[in-house]
């Protein structure tokens, strides 16, 4: 196959994934993607606070609420402000600056205002105890604070490309309650009879928003070349439109930095046949020739897997991955006589406990 169309396609995919993921992430963490058309009537930060109060809000309705470019409009309806709380909190120029508007149009019908956001200053107290506490009675055995554990082997597969074949693993495990979890990750591959690459992470996971967790910990890389250790800080969660997203920043020794972005989507062909596109990209702050890594966008994988849920917890699959190395990383790989772009057929299982 010709290289050029593939490259183009991949770049389009990368761009599309970034378009979807970045603003989605922003929204999920409480930042607005700045796309709702009521954002036209969104008050300034100062006004938002008033609106959040909700009592000063009998302003005339802005019947012009419609579609168009965002611009803060001081004259807005109190009613709108109320609904808007979820969207306006944490409005950050960085998001707006990207100009990403994946959910434009009549987003009035969208629900973000019903989710997330920050409590208005006069929000009701949930405390009706009048100072009365719990008794000393034993025997309560509610499970709402109980620790659970999960092992998710998202991908355990055999891959076969033009120039490489082997096995790869992408697994996560956690243990803890709703508020605190110990979270382990392992992703890597073997080939040519040896461990090629293995990224392991030990993280402390905390929920920060309805669908988002922060993860803080360490990462250690094994495989070809010297091991590397990093501090890790990331977010993981579910973006609007059901994109599962992981974005993690890493700081290593000798001033190394890295950023990893991964997103998955599940398309239900039936209740059991599920098509799962997947995208992953790695960026590095500086060269690491010993591990064939160059600064900048180092590699990206776009894949799609078709799995059948024999049970919820056991699903074999087949699929295809397209891996592309970029910039200096590509030079390293080329120098090693390996392909810069490689499609791989994969077959494996998705299992969790």
């Amino acid at each position, binding site marked *: 196959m010709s290289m050029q169309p593939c490259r183009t396609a991949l770049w389009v995919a990368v761009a599309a994934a970034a378009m979807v993921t970045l603003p989605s992430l922003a929204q999920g963490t409480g930042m607005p993607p700045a796309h709702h058309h009521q954002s036209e009537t969104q008050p300034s930060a100062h006004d938002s606070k008033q609106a959040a109060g*909700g009592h000063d*809000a009998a302003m005339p309705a802005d019947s012009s609420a419609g579609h168009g470019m965002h611009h803060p409009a001081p004259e807005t309806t109190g009613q709108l402000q109320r609904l808007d709380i979820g969207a306006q909190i944490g409005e950050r120029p960085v998001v707006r600056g990207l100009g990403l508007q994946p959910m434009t149009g009549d987003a009035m019908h969208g629900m973000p205002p*019903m989710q997330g956001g920050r409590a208005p200053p006069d929000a009701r107290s*949930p405390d009706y105890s009048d100072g009365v506490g719990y008794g000393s009675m034993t025997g309560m055995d509610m499970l*709402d604070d109980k620790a659970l554990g999960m092992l998710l082997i998202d991908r355990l597969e055999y891959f076969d490309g033009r120039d490489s074949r082997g096995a790869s693993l992408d697994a996560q495990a956690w243990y803890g309650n*709703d508020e605190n979890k110990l979270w382990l990750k392992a992703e890597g591959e073997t080939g040519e009879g040896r461990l090629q690459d293995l990224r392991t992470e030990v993280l402390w996971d905390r929920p920060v*928003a309805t669908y988002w967790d922060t993860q803080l910990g360490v990462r250690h890389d094994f495989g070809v070349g010297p091991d590397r250790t990093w501090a890790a800080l990331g977010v993981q969660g579910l973006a609007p439109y059901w994109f599962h997203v992981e974005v993690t920043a890493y700081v290593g020794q000798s001033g190394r930095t890295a950023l990893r972005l991964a997103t998955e989507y599940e398309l239900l062909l039936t209740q059991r046949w599920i098509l799962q596109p997947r995208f992953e990209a790695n960026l590095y702050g500086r060269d690491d020739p010993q591990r064939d890594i160059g600064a900048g966008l180092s590699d990206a994988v776009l894949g799609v897997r078709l799995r059948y849920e024999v049970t919820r917890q056991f699903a074999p699959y087949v699929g295809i991955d397209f891996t592309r190395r970029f910039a200096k990383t590509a030079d390293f790989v080329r120098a090693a006589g390996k392909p810069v772009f490689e499609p791989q057929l994969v077959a494996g299982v998705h299992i969790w406990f």
Partner: protein
Amino acid sequence: MKPYDSGTGPSMPMPSRRRFVQGLALGGAAAMLGAWNKPSWALTSPGQPTVLSGTEFALDIAETPVNFTGAARLGIAVNGMVPGPLLRWREGTTVTLRVTNRLRTSSSIHWHGLLLPFDMDGVPGISFPSIAPGETFVYRFPVRQNGTYWYHSHSGFEEQTGLYGPLVIDPAGPDPIRAERDYVVMLNDWTDENPESVFAHLKKMGEYYNRGEPTVPDFFADVSKMGLHRALASRKMWNEMRMSPRDLIDVTGATYTYLMNGTPPAGNWTGLFQPGERVRLRFINGSSNSYFDVRIPGLKLTVVAADGQNVEPVDVDEFRIGTAEVYDVIVQPQEDRAYTIFAQSMSRDGYARGTLAPRAGMQAEVPHLDPLPVIAMIDMMGAMAQGHEPSLPPHAGEGGRRPDGGEHNAMHDMTPNGAIRTGQPASTDDMDMHGMPAVHHARTEYGPNVDMRVDMPRTNLDDPGIGLRDNGRRVLTYADLHTVGGSLYPDTPVGREIELHLTGNMHRFIWGFDGLKFSQAKPVHFRYGEHLRLVLVNDTMMTHPIHLHGMWSELESPDEKFQVRKHTISVQPAQRVTYRVKADALGRWAYHCHLLYHMEAGMFREVVVS
């Protein structure tokens, strides 16, 4: 009158579902033996009564082998039976129940809906420390009410594994409800899985038991029907919110087998009648996590009592019974034929079924399950969706299997300025919104434990609920229920209000009130003697049966008039309900969602009356 007149008989082994097909005549023969048909699979020794009446009772809690699906499992039984024996008391007596725990784990029995001293209420950690293995706890309390109730374990998941039974209290005087036949119809859900695994599955994957999610073919079907734009639009909100319009209930027929009086559908529990007789059916939803929609094709159902309290009789074709709710119904079959008692689950993937017949061994046609409903805009947005479809009934938007278009219309016709409210009813100049009560979200509703908030809940009670709207049948609603005699405290003014919001995060399977799980919350304090109003706003897209122990919940109409007295109040998605409570029962009480998995996930509060 022959109430529970012959509830004894030889026990029979539990046949598997396959064997049931062959064993049907035998099952029917067993059914003939009793008005309260002894569960044919229970390991009751021959001659042991399954109706226990009087004032002194000995109840043994122990594991027992059961087999509802063809897979042998251990259930938890009372006196060897699942459901446990029917307890029959009389109002005005004092009952003594010696409950012995023969399990290896602690246990308890809670008397659902009864007014009693709090230390007799049977909630571990609140009423008492639970019944330790090998120990006997003596419950003793005066019986101050009459009607149909039930009992169940309040420990862990014992209720899911069989520790429940019916409780009927005869009035001190003559029963104003006249019937020639009198049957308990107890509805339950059974899973062959360990309930703790069910809970863990839900924590790890909220949609684990939902096999009705929208698919790609669904989408293309919608595209061809309504066009690409509308098909996309109908999914927009759901996808942005990361919620499913098919998330009606968390545990479904994917794991549940639904039981009627402990009998799976193939077993066909049967109650006998002679044409022309008045038959009283005491429906008890003793399930752990199921809503049932009940009807008897060919018969009008006259609802005469709700949660043990007599109501002005109302004729319906069908009623929804929430988890832990109770409805007494009179039917009067005139024909000499069989009638199917059909109780389909709200998730439309299973049913409990039995038969009313003039002779044993008969059966009537079993209806098809209704299509799986899609959650309507009104279930997400309350009055916001309601107020802008004046031409449609309050349940606009749900029109059957594919109401996406309707939903979308309901949203589309909504003008932004009219639809949204400031939180202060007086401050809106929108006609539709006049009289809408204010909603006050708690400051703890803005965190990871909450996936939606409803700013404008609907308050109407005349909505039968999702999946029952416009189905061509007359379906009971709370607006139809009027307790005979009205409120117990008609002249006592209502003092303060306590507003609590039902909240959850379906993805994380976290449930609570005001965004707080039980373990994160403080008790709710009622001042002894006060007459207060509880305001519940359902900030979730699921229906929750909320149960206050020890005191009645006197449900109010939207204009705060007394409506009906209940012990369990089902709150629909995006609905606001209010009810009065007379805090006349000193002590510590449980207050919770009666969906067992929601309760265990945190939708629970302790109420202290002092």
